[in-house]
């Protein structure tokens, strides 16, 4: 369309079919401008790709762990003999080592190792085995498969985090141990397995990155979201109904409107300050409790939910209201029996998106003490889930990222994958709801 105008001669006495210098310049400028726009989009998408590849590349190793998988048989006599020893776990360790050496011999792999090396690789093997047989004495004499988690440095060796060049001999791992690891790998004893502990487990201390799991903080996030849902949905819907359907045009309504739009733009950390000052210092609610986190996130999510609820109430055509009023319904009945049900899909979509936002929010949780708390256990019951100190997913990720040990970074990335999986699910549900139930009037 514009080409026609571009090819018209700018100066007289020139060929129509030949573009003069000025036109060429203008066309080049046009091309450049277009290229800027395209490259801006490509840069944006490039960042997206880089972000996701680095999340996936760094996070996936958190889902596997290195285990030593051995079949072990302990006879009744060996058990009795070991129980008579002074150092019982040492006796079990020695039995285990003998067994392992036998296994390696069968496979034709020759390697020298002692009990200390095994302890550096696998931790206290003896006590694990002893506990198993103490609890299940009936398995004595039959072969039992043990899956023993390797230490985080051995794990790092397998995942390329630790190499022979970077490893320095320490009481945690020595260079000679890597020979043993290689030998075990050759014999097929040591391998990578899916790390269920990471998903179901609880956070470990600073010294045990291998055993850290995100399970407890998922539960903490879950309780927080329950609080947010139970408070922000009714309050948000009620507030929107009032503002959209009943509120008269006056100063008070204006005040509410201004407040809502300002709250939507207040930085989340300020809500954390509010939570700290009001809920913890003033009301003395328990620190680090999902209840407090939920309350703070509720206040933060409310503007989002109110804005989306008002939009979906507004999209219900006035004819519905008029029809209801026409057959004698009161204003309240019109809203609750007719407008609200029709607006519900939109409201639910907005609520889910608000919840997803709240789920990923970290800054306010920092201030109410959810970071730095080591979530070592699951809450004991439903009610305790709200009041007992716990962590939440983003807070847990931050805690891991802030720890000095590099092995925790892998956990932090893995936690992000789980967090994003939750967010993705919630958003997909919201999209499906919208597609399935949204009505075009």
């Amino acid at each position: 369309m514009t080409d026609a105008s571009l090819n018209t001669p700018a100066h007289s006495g020139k060929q129509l079919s030949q573009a003069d210098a000025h036109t060429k310049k203008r066309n080049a400028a046009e091309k450049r401008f277009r290229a800027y726009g395209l490259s801006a989009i490509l840069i944006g998408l490039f960042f997206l790709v880089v972000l996701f590849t680095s999340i996936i590349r760094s996070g996936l190793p958190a889902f596997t762990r290195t285990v030593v998988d051995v079949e072990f048989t302990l006879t009744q006599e060996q058990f009795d003999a070991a129980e008579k020893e002074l150092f019982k776990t040492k006796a079990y360790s020695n039995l285990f080592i003998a067994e392992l050496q036998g296994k390696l011999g069968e496979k034709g792999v020759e390697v020298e190792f002692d009990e200390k090396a095994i302890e550096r690789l696998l931790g206290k093997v003896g006590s694990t085995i002893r506990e198993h047989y103490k609890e299940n004495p009936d398995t004595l004499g039959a072969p039992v498969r043990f899956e023993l988690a390797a230490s985080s440095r051995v794990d790092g060796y397998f995942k390329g985090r630790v190499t022979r060049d970077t490893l320095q001999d320490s009481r945690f791992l020595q260079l000679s141990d890597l020979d043993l690891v290689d030998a075990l790998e050759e014999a097929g004893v040591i391998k990578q397995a899916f790390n269920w502990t990471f998903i179901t487990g609880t956070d470990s201390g600073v010294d045990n990155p291998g055993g850290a799991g995100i399970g407890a903080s998922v539960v903490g996030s879950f309780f927080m979201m329950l609080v947010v849902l139970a408070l922000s949905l009714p309050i948000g819907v009620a507030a929107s109904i009032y503002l959209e359907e009943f509120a008269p045009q006056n100063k008070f309504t204006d005040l509410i409107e201004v407040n809502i739009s300002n709250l939507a733009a207040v930085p989340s950390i300020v809500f954390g300050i509010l939570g700290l000052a009001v809920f913890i210092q003033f009301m003395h609610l328990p620190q680090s409790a999902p209840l407090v986190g939920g309350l703070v996130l509720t206040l933060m999510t409310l503007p989002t939910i109110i804005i989306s609820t008002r939009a979906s109430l507004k999209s219900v055509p006035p004819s519905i209201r008029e029809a209801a009023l026409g057959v004698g319904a009161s204003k309240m009945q019109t809203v609750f029996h007719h407008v609200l049900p029709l607006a519900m899909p939109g409201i639910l979509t907005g609520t889910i998106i608000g919840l997803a936002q709240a789920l990923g929010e970290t800054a306010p949780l920092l201030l109410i003490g959810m970071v730095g708390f080591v979530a070592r256990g699951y809450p004991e019951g439903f009610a305790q889930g709200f009041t007992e100190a716990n962590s939440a997913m983003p807070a847990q990720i931050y805690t891991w990222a802030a720890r000095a040990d590099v092995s925790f970074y892998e956990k932090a990335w893995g936690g992000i994958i789980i967090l994003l999986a939750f967010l993705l699910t919630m958003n997909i549900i919201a999209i499906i709801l919208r597609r399935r139930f949204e009505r075009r009037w």
Partner: protein
Amino acid sequence: MPLLWLFLIVLAIAAAGFVLGRGRALASAGGDARALHSLPGYYGWNVALKAMVPGFGLLIVWLLAQPLYVGSTVSSMIPDSAIKDGASRSLLMAEVRRTADGLDAAVAQDLITARDAADPDADIAALTDKLKEAGQIVTAEITQPVLTAAQRYRDLNAKGAFAMLIAVVAVALAGAFYGVNEARAEFRARNVVENGVRALLIAAASVAILTTLGIVLSLVFNTVEFFRLYPASNFFFGTSWAPSFSGRGGASDLGVLPLLWGTFYISIVALAVAVPIGLFAAIYLSEYAGPKVRAVAKPLLEVLAGIPTIVYGLFALLTVGPLLVSVFGDEGLGWMQAGTAVMTAGLVMGIMLIPFVSSLSDDIINAVPQAMRDGSYGLGATQSETIRQVVLPAALPGIVGAILLAASRAIGETMIVVLGAGAAARLSLNPFEAMTTVTAKIVSQLTGDADFASPEALVAFALGMTLFVLTLGLNVFALYIVRKYREQYE
């Protein structure tokens, strides 16, 4: 969990009241619903609301008031002589509260009997040992006044909880009784219920005002408290930020200028990344892209906005930081010492803000009427000339508003700077140096070990106030610009 039980009891009273009220209204009309003023359900709802609203209202008020009352009563009975030099009454009260919690926990674990815990002549040393055994953190030794106060505290709290149970149930029952009594055929139940529901709706809408009020009050009170301990002029004009870690204060330099500089510097870097990319992306999407490209690229860009900030923080710390170091660090150009720097945080924050700028600008550019473009094309302008000379000037107020909103986002952003910008407060022009921001320092001052009453912790509230005023000012200014300079098209 007695609170949960209390909640359920009130609900049960309301449910029973609903059935009773409905039944009584029907009975008064001889079982013929047509003789009633309202639908039978409204008589039930009338009773239920009259039981629930006062019941829950009293519950909430009581829960808020009891700690205040107990706190002031107990605090007034601690003699002045019991307060050590340098310590404050609030510090001692915290100890009392800890001791009381410890006693509760010890009783719950059966380590001491309830009678021992309340015994005023208890042996303090033995009790301390018991508390330690119960896993309670107790300061070195409990003094007699603290123990007495803690016991009084427990006593008052237990009595208060019991009184609350009685009062709430009584109020709920009274309300239900009153409502059931009202349920007669001629009673205008629907009007009453609808007015009640309307009042509840107004209350829900007022939560927004309460939240703002809560934010402002908690910031103002603590900020005033801070300025009582630390001169305001030193805070606003001090060029050095060096909080002492002793917890006693006194020697701390708490000047806000280095933090503000860090905040602005990082925000400027972020905007320098986000504004050109976001703006050009918006222009391309709204003016050049076909519907197919638009349908794919727009949501993909908006994914960037949906990613939690903690993810960006980690991305800055672990991916972008090391990457920048490998280019600008000692092995490359030698400008950068460590991965955490203004550049790291600014770059990542810019990525976060791209969709923010692009979708806001996209809406604004789309709102420019097609007739203006057509007029420009008609005069022989190319598409880019039209955009630069017609569309963008028309959309400028909106775009400036969007950029200001993005700037307010950048200033208030926390996780990226906490993880990516470093912790050193300095006034420097080098973007490859670590700097820190207002938000990052709020976090570090409030999550440290500093006592809440010390200037080192209270400064966080003054910082929060600064941040709140800054972002609010930017938002109001953005709205003002949009409103004032907006072109009105038919």
